[in-house]
């Protein structure tokens, strides 16, 4: 930190820094060390706190990695070349943004991630959100669906419709969206180990409704690493999951090249599970590289896939560190992508960052304080140049969110953009001594974590060995200890405590939903053409066997045929389980 070496590429003229250095020294002697003089002007300050005392001995950055100085000055930007390092938005290395106009050209969508209870309740909520102006609906599937179990499976008992909607067959999809203009709304889902199935469900929904699937806008997260690093909704081994996920990428890049997003990588689980800001950057980039290379091995060129890819990050509480993180992530990506793929093609070197702000920092004790938290997280995302922001509801730490809290979350970016003018200019914090210094630090340390993963054999190996999980567990434990030692303050949790406000309204489950869903499933199973289902399932099994034997065979088309025949999610993944077996995550404490 604060390198004193002179650099020809620094932003300041020769001699200026020497003059500034002596200026700073005078400030330290005359102003900083004599703050007691201030005290005479404000006796209430120094009689309480004594002279020259800071409130705490050390000021740390949010993820605890950096000790922050009293003040940042031109001296901290000495080796930061304003052209090469900072640059301009829309050009390499994209520190200041991927788009030259940033928010001035970005229509912020109203985004909600929801889908709770019975499909009737969820449908009603989607309609409400649509009427409120939302044109982006991210569908949450329940856990049995995400792990490939039918609603009537004993494993699913008690979980049907709990954290999302139950999808047993294509019929559930058709019923849920029978009202929605498919060409006007962007849809998507997060199920990460069921990517080929999710693709089939959305594609066939269009087909059934007479809408050309290629004009639909569908976003699939299809991000298996996320499931092995915190989210936990995995089925097969990481290697098999990667293979299935990249089949989706191949299929979409080939047949649905317009509006479909085949995959993106989400770092929220890493960070929420205990990783630091720099780990989020380094690990996230290593994971993205692995996805691009997996598709590349199957013949998809990076310049075809990379432009549809994005890094979906969290926004934590330290406003400036997070802004620096987003800027550093774009810059580090630009450099690594250039090295790795040997190109200056902006389709590859410019990284699109989207954000789901930090639901992990929401507290249950005084839930309304969370509104302030997410507001700042959204601000950090905007100032950092995130291109899409999804906001959690303030009551998420208590229970599944209500319609009201979900709506408030969706409005937050609009208030910041339209009323606070946060998006009036691109990268408004660019050139701030502090933010540029932090950006340099995060890039430098992010690179170290990226190198660490590469040294372990890359992202897949880091997932398989439990390296990520161990880093997360260590970080989380340390964070918790900091709170308990009082070194880290969370208002409402370890400062300004009151009895919990219980008056907020919580979402209520519909306990009939499971019964109704099982009944619907039973009906479909009777009505469908059994011979076709059998045929499709055995074809699917054949593909799985080919894969297990090491042959390349894309699973998407046979999967689609099975879904079209109303094979259930449990039947489809049951067949694959027979061949691939089931994975068990390493137990790391």
């Amino acid at each position, binding site marked *: 930190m604060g390198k004193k070496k002179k650099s020809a590429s620094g932003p300041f003229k020769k001699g200026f820094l020497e003059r500034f250095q002596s200026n700073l020294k005078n400030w330290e002697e005359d102003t900083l060390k004599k703050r007691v003089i201030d005290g005479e002007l404000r006796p209430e300050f120094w009689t309480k706190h004594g002279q020259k005392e800071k409130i705490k001995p050390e000021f740390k950055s949010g993820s605890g990695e950096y000790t922050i100085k009293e003040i940042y000055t031109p001296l901290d930007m000495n080796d930061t070349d304003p052209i090469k390092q900072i640059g301009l938005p829309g050009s390499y290395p994209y520190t200041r943004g991927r788009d030259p106009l940033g928010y001035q050209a970005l229509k912020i969508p109203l985004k909600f991630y929801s889908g709770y209870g019975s499909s009737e309740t969820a449908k009603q909520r989607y309609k409400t959100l649509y009427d409120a102006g939302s044109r982006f609906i991210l569908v949450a599937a329940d*856990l*049995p669906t*995400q*792990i490939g*179990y039918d609603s009537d499976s004993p*494993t*699913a*008992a*008690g*979980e049907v419709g*709990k*954290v999302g909607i139950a999808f047993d067959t294509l019929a559930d999809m058709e019923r849920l969206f029978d009202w929605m203009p498919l060409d006007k709304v962007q849809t998507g889902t997060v199920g990460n180990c069921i990517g080929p199935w999710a693709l089939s469900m959305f594609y066939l929904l269009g087909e059934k409704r007479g809408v050309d699937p290629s004009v639909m806008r569908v976003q699939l997260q299809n991000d298996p690493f996320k*499931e092995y690093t*915190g*989210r*936990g*909704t*995995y089925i097969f081994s990481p290697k098999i999951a990667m293979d299935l996920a990249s089949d989706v990428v191949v299929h979409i890049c080939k047949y649905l090249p317009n509006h479909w997003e085949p995959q993106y990588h989400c770092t929220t689980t890493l960070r*929420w*599970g*205990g990783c630091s800001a720099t780990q989020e950057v380094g690990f996230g980039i290593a994971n993205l590289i692995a996805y691009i290379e997996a598709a590349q091995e199957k013949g998809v060129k990076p310049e075809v896939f990379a432009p549809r890819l994005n890094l979906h990050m969290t926004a934590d509480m330290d406003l400036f560190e997070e802004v620096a993180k987003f800027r550093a992530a774009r810059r580090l990506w630009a450099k690594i992508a250039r090295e790795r793929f040997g190109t200056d093609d902006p389709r590859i070197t410019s990284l699109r960052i989207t954000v789901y702000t930090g639901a992990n920092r929401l*507290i*249950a*004790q005084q839930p309304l304080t969370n509104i302030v938290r997410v507001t700042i997280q959204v601000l950090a995302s905007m100032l950092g140049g995130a291109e899409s922001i999804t906001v959690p509801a303030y009551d998420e*730490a*208590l*229970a*599944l969110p209500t319609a009201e809290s979900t709506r408030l979350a969706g409005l937050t970016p609009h208030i910041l953009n339209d009323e606070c003018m946060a998006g009036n200019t691109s990268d408004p914090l660019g050139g701030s001594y502090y933010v540029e210094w932090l950006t340099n630090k995060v890039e430098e340390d992010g690179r170290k974590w990226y190198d660490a993963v590469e040294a372990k054999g890359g992202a897949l190996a880091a997932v398989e060995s439990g390296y990520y999980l161990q880093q*997360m*567990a260590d970080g*989380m*434990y340390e964070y*918790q200890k900091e*709170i*308990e030692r009082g070194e880290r303050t*969370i208002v409402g*949790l370890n400062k300004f405590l009151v009895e*919990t406000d*219980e008056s907020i309204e*919580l979402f209520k*489950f519909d306990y009939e939903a499971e019964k109704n869903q099982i009944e619907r499933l039973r009906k479909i199973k009777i009505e469908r053409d059994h011979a076709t289902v059998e045929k499709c399932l055995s074809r699917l099994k054949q593909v799985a066997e080919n894969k297990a034997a090491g042959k390349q065979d894309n699973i998407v088309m046979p999967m689609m045929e099975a879904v079209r025949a109303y094979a259930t999610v449990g039947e489809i993944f049951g067949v694959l389980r027979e061949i691939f077996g089931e994975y068990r*995550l390493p*137990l*790391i*404490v």
Partner: protein
Amino acid sequence: MGKIRVLIAKPGLDGHETGARLIARALRDAGMEVIYLGARQTPKMIVDSALQEGVDLIGLSILSGIHKEAASSVMRMLEENDATHISLVVGGIIPKADVPELKRMGVKGVFGPGTNTHQVVAFINELTGLSPK
């Protein structure tokens, strides 16, 4: 007197293990013997392991809203196995309104997000009437 033996598990299909891992580590650091089962455990798997390992206490971590079902199944199986000497505590996202019902089932303690790990340690020490070491 032996160490307190605790089993930590996540019943159901939810795989968010961060809280469960954190508690397991904190209890271990407090000197308890911790058996960590991880996620995707059925009540039967949990109770079977608890009996086999001879634990004093079972801690369930639940975020997905299945706390009532999971706790009642575990309590029932403990009763069926004459093992009600094993205490059950639950942590995670549990609406306050559900706490009385969990307590009626026989759940000894319910810990929400943001709980201090020392509180949990102290609670378990008192509950089991054992010192941690």
